[in-house]
């Protein structure tokens, strides 16, 4: 059974210089799409990945990551809309490249579809009441 998930990987400084992603492809046969990466040598590395493959390969790959010391987070928890702050103006809907922030044509409220969010963070500053928060 195939599986596809978006995950956030945190690399501790000691792992930043190791070819971990390469092994995910080579040893675990996973298909990956890097949505975001920020690697600063000697500091923490961060990567947002679209990870897919056979269920068994996926689980073994995740286990490998955990064993190396990479911290894994699922994406939904990382970009958060502070509901009390959102005024539902709609300024973000033309900024969001994936349609994760979209206007409901009936209510004219802005919906946030977390599953479509790629954590690009483009929405954070253009939001006038700053309702979008990043929790990497």
């Amino acid at each position, binding site marked *: 059974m195939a599986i596809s998930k978006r995950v956030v990987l945190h690399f501790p400084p000691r792992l930043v210089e190791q070819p971990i992603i390469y092994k995910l492809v080579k040893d675990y046969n996973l298909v990956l799409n890097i949505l975001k990466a920020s690697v600063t040598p000697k500091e923490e590395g961060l990567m947002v990945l679209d990870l897919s493959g056979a269920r068994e390969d996926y689980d073994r790959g995740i286990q490998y990551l955990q064993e190396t010391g990479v911290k894994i987070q699922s994406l939904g928890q990382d970009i958060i809309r502070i509901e009390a*702050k959102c*005024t*539902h*103006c*709609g*300024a*973000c*809907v*033309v*900024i969001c490249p994936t349609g994760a922030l979209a*206007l409901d*044509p009936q*209510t*004219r*409220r802005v919906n946030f579809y977390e599953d479509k969010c790629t954590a690009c963070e483009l929405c954070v*500053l*253009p939001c*006038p*009441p*700053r309702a979008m928060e990043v929790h990497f």
Partner: protein
Amino acid sequence: MAKTIAEINEKIRKGQAVVVTAEEVIDLVEKKGVTRTAQEVDVVTTGTFSPMCSSSAYFNLGHSKPRIKVGGGRAYLNDVPAYTGLAAMDIYLGAAAIPDDDPRNRVHPGPFNYGGGHVIEELVAGKDVRLVVSTYGTDCYPRKKLETWINLKDLNEAVLFNIRNAYQNYNVGVNLSNRTIYTYMGVLKPNLGNANYCSAGQLSPLLNDPYYKTIGMGTRIFLGGGIGYVAWHGTQHNPDVLRSDNGVPRRGAGTLAVIGDLKQMQPRWLVGVSMVGYGCTITVGLGVPIPILTEEILRYTAVRDEEIFAPIVDYAEAYPQRSPDILREVSYGELKSGRILLQGKEVPTASLSSYPKAVEIANLLKEWIMKGDFLLTEAVAPLPGVEAGITFKPLKERPIEE
């Protein structure tokens, strides 16, 4: 059928007034026609929830012991500078004020995280705010420095005073250049990447009373979640612009100066906001009740988004250079469809004004009136109309020769 405001107020007191929002009245008129609707409906409520930069508040802080003359000194609220050119303990804070050490646009686009609008929101939320004053001493006001927490409830007066709110129509901002621009109309992506507008359209107060037949000085309104009043016409009030046959201006036109006691307002209707690369401001909730005194007044309130047109302006070149060029006019109906056609391109649209919140405001005001909590007022004086001969003057620069 002409009614008077006194008659409508009598019905409000008895809990018998028929009140509908400017959205609901559209369907009513469609179903029942103008004459019947005008007979049945007493009040139409409007609403808008939008960034409005010319908003501000003034405070009387109470006298310290020993006394200090804040007037003429420097005063900061949470590091945001307030104006002190008034008597000893009165200070004035504008929504667009930002801390002296804010990086501004030194690294463009600056985030403008915190400003006067945010201070006003925090005060209204009941939070303590840091007041720091430095000034000169006098015989009667010897103290030179003051640092203290203040809280809205302890101030003698805290008054929201917005010198330009509720713009009757506004530009739609686009970007014809090949780089992203950061404006008060939001982030505008290059090559017509998006079109941003800012009006509640069919719910907006002055678009429902295009000739100011009922809204005037002294009109009681919903302001920031509390009660406020129209104090004057707003700055840049410019009624004599191009109008449609239905009377609705096709350009930015009338504006309102409004005032109200900050202590009875609510933070959810006064929200400090940041426009990246531009500055700080405040999103203000404002709603005006329109008494249906005549069929003509009712007809104005039944205006629909499809019948209200706004000019599309390039904010990369035309706006900053004050060129009068507009790309075309577009109706709010089109804008709210999510896409408009412009120079052969489908351009996605976004609003800076929150329509769902405008609906909420119009409904809240409707509830207040139906419960008998909110009576209508007769305008003390009308707003200047089309006939007032107002022209919107640009700044004429005259070189100063030393």
